[in-house]
């Protein structure tokens, strides 16, 4: 069943149409890739889903519920988590605390119980720590829990963002260029990680430029160019689509 449905999404900035009447669906339990040349509007689509931008028109439906225009933190509570294209970690805080940020929306302790450190608050903290450590172990960063985020290698910082996103117990995760800056070895590990995420029951939507990774791990692809969808389908079908080839490589006069 369709977990995420985008219908006629449009977003303009000043005179620029960044997202042009985009419609697509993501089936539950699948791994879908959103690809296209630079500037095609992929991250803007992500930002529209997560509520960072409000669309000029169109809707975002998640599990049958209309999430269009809701504040971002509410969307996270509903079950959509994300990573950022430019890494946005809390650089001066520890790895563990970064992941705890993901736990935040699943906890309830408010001002008073925190001020007076009630028993339920302490118990909840403990459960959050367990959750955070679990996610760190899942991505392989547990040993670095006390390090400051800014001291991690670039590839590990991306993993940390994923751990933070997972900590909010999402049903749907959006990864924005997760392999950016990773070498081949790290990318291979990332592929395994993405599959493991899906195996946990979390649907994955990702933007990626690394075609090797995209072809290996995605079950469906959506191709954007200049803000509009130009192709959808299995990786093999999309790879052979002449419009896609033209978008990436430019029209080939010899053919």
């Amino acid at each position, binding site marked *: 069943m369709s977990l995420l449905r985008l219908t006629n999404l449009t977003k303009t900035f000043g005179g620029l149409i960044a997202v042009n009447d985009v419609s697509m669906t993501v089936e539950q339990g699948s791994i879908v890739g959103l690809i296209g040349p630079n500037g095609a509007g992929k991250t803007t689509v992500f930002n529209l889903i997560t509520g960072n931008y409000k669309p000029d028109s169109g809707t975002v439906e998640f599990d049958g519920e209309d999430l269009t225009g809701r504040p971002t933190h509410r969307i996270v509570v509903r079950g959509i988590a994300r990573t950022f294209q430019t890494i946005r970690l809390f650089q001066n805080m520890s790895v563990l605390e970064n992941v705890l*940020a993901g736990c935040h929306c699943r906890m309830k302790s408010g001002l008073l119980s925190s001020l007076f450190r009630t028993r339920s608050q302490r118990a909840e903290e403990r459960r959050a720590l367990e959750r955070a450590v679990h996610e760190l172990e899942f991505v392989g960063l547990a040993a670095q829990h006390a390090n400051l985020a800014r001291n991690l290698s670039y590839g590990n910082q991306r993993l940390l963002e994923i751990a933070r996103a997972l900590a909010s117990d999402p049903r749907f995760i959006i990864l924005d260029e997760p392999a950016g800056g990773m070498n081949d070895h790290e990318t291979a590990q990332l592929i395994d990680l993405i599959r493991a995420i899906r195996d946990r029951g979390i649907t994955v939507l990702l933007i990626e430029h690394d075609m090797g990774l995209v072809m290996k791990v995605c079950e469906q692809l959506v191709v954007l160019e200049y803000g509009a969808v130009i192709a959808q389908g299995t990786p093999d079908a999309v790879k052979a689509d002449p419009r896609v080839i033209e978008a990436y490589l430019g029209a080939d006069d010899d053919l």
Partner: protein
Amino acid sequence: MNRRYAMYMVAAAAFATMPAFINPYWTDVLNTVGLYAILALSLNIILGHAGMFHMGHAAFYAVGAYTTAVLNVTFHVPVLWAMPAAGVLAALFALVVARPIIHLRGDYLLIVTIGIVEIVRIALVNNIFDMTGGANGIFGIARPELFGFKIRKPVHFFYLIWGFCAVTILLFHWLENSRFGRALNYIREDEVAAEGSGVNTAAYKLGAFVLGAFWAGMAGTLFAAKMTIISPESFSFWESVVMFTIVILGGMGSIRGVLLGAFLIVGLPEVFRELASARMLVFGAAMVAMMIFRTQGLLPPAPRHYDLRGIMSGTQTREERA
């Protein structure tokens, strides 16, 4: 209990005996330090933890002090009973005033908070609601009474103020090491990432203001009781600057830093009274120098340690953040 806490306990106990060894003038100085410490700790929530540039804290202080004064002088409410009311009113004021400006970016927020504190001061001078006594302020505020004991000498106020400060330190220490405290730090570090991780940034920023204001309001009660006279000049922009400086120079987000800052910034000028007029000059130069040479403040906060025994194999950590 580990060594670090034991050290703090000993230092606190030693400090508590100080009035026995110093004359009342210096006790009063310590009382002023204590008041500023409470104020700076409350500002620390907003500025140090949440990272919001707030230079209008004296406005909340003023609301608390004047609420106390009016309740006590006009309605004969005992001073200590007025304290929660002062806090609540200051908190409500913060809620109303901060709500429309909470989304403003750093330096713009700064300017608006300056505007707020000045408007409050001008309103007080102009005898708003016909209650504030104008430029002369309100006098005749009663002394606080605790179980029939009248608190009026500096040494009495020492224990009242520093007792309140100790409670403040304990509660805020707990708050820092909780979900609430972390949320404020996430907002300070990267608001977009915080919101994207599920933190309701608008609500927490407002919450920080309201909490900080509540405490500043209560500090206002202590001030009113100690001085028995209050007037608008005690709540000017420059008071806000002092509080702001204590937090920044002491160490944003660090209770120890803020305490040290209060002692230095309020206490040192007293020590160097002879150079009285040049104090502020040195103050200003020191601010510039601090920013150039030690931006993080004198005692920046140590990273939190989390007790992961039982959660992660091979973990030996047993310290918690001091």
